[in-house]
């Protein structure tokens, strides 16, 4: 083929241009640390890297979620553990008090101890993690367990056989400490016939017997009871007065995402786990009843409360199992995500990051090629027939 001067010069220009582009690409990949500078460099790899990045950020989020879950579950677990300990201490105390060898004064003291336990249970129930109340369902901004107003409770009746006595408690308490009013029939009969006496210290001190009136009987500090029916001598009932602990949370389970399609419950609902739902395993109610029966010096009722405490212990063990097993799952997931994250990082780096050794080798190869091209080009460019014609042609 006939090679003309522009062909030679254009060829030099094109080749140098291509080499400079190569050089620039290698240089950019080294200085940016990224293998590809634009999507079109390798669309499939760049697409895969996008997917991996998404997966990586999701995994990081799930890891943060697991951290939160661990915090909540740990607080829940230790709360339930502490409550179980308190329940065991209460059971031990109740077990002592149920025997006949203790007197009213000792049971009063025990009642105060139970009051202390009750307050501890409430405090435990109001445990927070990161400023959020963990047993409150979704109402994490306010304490789930609060003491309500003083309430005169319904009477706990102990009638002898054949008695048809009825008692309805009422009135508004004006006192400041919790107590239990014990009422005992001294002689049988209905309104205007039977006589009763009252004690507020578990039967250590009694009032003088009085005849059952037609209207409500005032038991002191605003507590009233209306007696009806026909009583037998020896009938007893007690009317506890205390500030019931109320549950102000809700019944929602707090969920957190731990996998793309999987959520984990990280809380226990306070009303079911501790109390406030008035059910069989309402620890707050059980302890309040235990306290009242101790105040009333009634070993029989103490025994009944003891049975309930034991049933709660079984219940709390099963509740305790749930944060425990969830914590195990969190641990497993953390391991999985730990290695998954390493794998994703590795893949992103394999696909997208510059292999420095290879890139620097490539750079020196390209550099050599460029220099060789420059050298040969300058040789070709400087060659001219004129150099040899000079003198002879003149």
């Amino acid at each position: 083929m006939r090679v003309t001067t522009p062909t030679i010069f254009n060829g030099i220009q094109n080749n140098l241009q291509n080499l400079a582009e190569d050089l620039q690409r290698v240089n950019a990949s080294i200085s940016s640390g990224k293998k590809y500078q634009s999507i079109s460099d390798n669309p499939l790899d760049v697409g895969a890297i996008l997917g991996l990045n998404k997966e990586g950020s999701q995994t990081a989020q799930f890891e943060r979620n697991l951290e939160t879950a661990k915090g909540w579950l740990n607080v829940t677990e230790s709360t339930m553990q502490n409550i179980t300990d308190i329940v065991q201490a209460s059971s031990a105390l109740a077990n002592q008090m149920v025997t006949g060898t203790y007197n009213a004064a000792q049971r009063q003291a025990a009642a105060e101890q139970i009051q202390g336990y009750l307050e501890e249970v409430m405090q435990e129930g109001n445990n927070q993690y990161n400023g959020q109340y963990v047993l409150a369902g979704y109402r994490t901004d306010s304490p789930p367990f609060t003491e309500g107003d003083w309430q005169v409770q319904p009477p706990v009746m102990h009638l002898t056989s054949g008695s048809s006595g009825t008692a309805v408690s009422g009135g508004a308490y004006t006192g400041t400490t919790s107590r239990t009013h014990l009422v005992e029939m001294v002689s049988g009969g209905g309104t205007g016939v039977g006589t009763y006496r009252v004690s507020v210290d578990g039967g250590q001190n009694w009032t003088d017997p009085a005849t059952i009136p037609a209207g409500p009987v005032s038991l002191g500090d605003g507590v009233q009871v209306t007696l009806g029916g026909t009583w037998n001598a020896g009938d007893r009932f007690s009317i506890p007065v205390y500030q019931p602990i109320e549950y102000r949370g809700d019944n929602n389970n707090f969920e957190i995402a731990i996998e793309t399609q999987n959520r984990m419950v990280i809380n226990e609902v306070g009303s079911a786990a501790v109390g406030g739902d008035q059910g069989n395993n309402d620890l707050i109610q059980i302890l309040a009843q235990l306290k009242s029966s101790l105040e009333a010096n009634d070993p029989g009722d103490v025994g009944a409360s003891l049975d309930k405490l034991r049933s709660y212990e079984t219940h709390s063990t099963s509740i305790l199992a749930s944060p425990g097993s969830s914590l195990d799952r969190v641990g497993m997931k953390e391991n999985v995500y730990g290695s998954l994250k390493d794998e994703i990082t590795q893949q992103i780096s394999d696909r997208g990051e510059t292999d420095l050794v290879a890139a620097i080798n490539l750079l020196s190869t390209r550099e050599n090629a460029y220099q060789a091209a420059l050298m040969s080009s300058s040789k070709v460019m400087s060659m001219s027939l004129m150099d040899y014609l000079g003198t002879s042609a003149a």
Partner: protein
Amino acid sequence: MQISVERHGAPPVSGSIAIDPSLSLNDLVQSINTDPVLGGYLTASVEDNSLKIVANNASDTFGFVGDNSQALTALGVNTFFTGDKAYTLGVNAWVLDNPNLVATGQIDATGAHSVGDNRNALALAGLENATAGPNGLTFSAAYQNLVTSLGLDAQDAGDQKTFYQGLVNQLSQMRDSVSGVSLDEEMTNLVKYQRAYQAAARLVSVADQLYQTLIDLGK
């Protein structure tokens, strides 16, 4: 649309506001203010051509639920996003500036809206892995597809460019090989013609000498 008001420690109350397309903003304000339940708790007004609802009792909180009419979305109340076109789409500036305003909860049948409620947040986060659109892809997969196909198109265009550039170069070379100027060739020709001229001149010079010799003979 239902509005549910919660006063601390009291069960939430809610009232239904009927929306129909003929309602003006003032009508809506009117129907909120005169609602038998909500009227006592909330005061609605029109401010800067926008709907403004204020709780009468500063400690009350209120939320919206079951807005089938999409009136709130249209009014931009309580929305995550702003804008009405792809290029005006954005995150609501209020939410962006104050993450506390993210509606993380959902108001259920009881009307309660507690701070710890994360159902809406879970649902929003769930969108990341939810399929959407006619191809049943997740948002990120669809984006990945878009990017990859864009990249493939760009790569294809780049390849085409290289191919046509090569073709152009090839044709230019062919054209140049026919019509282009080779300096060496021209130089050679120049020398060739120069030599020919020199030779011709030499011939003339020789002839001249010959004639000179002849003329000198006749002297």
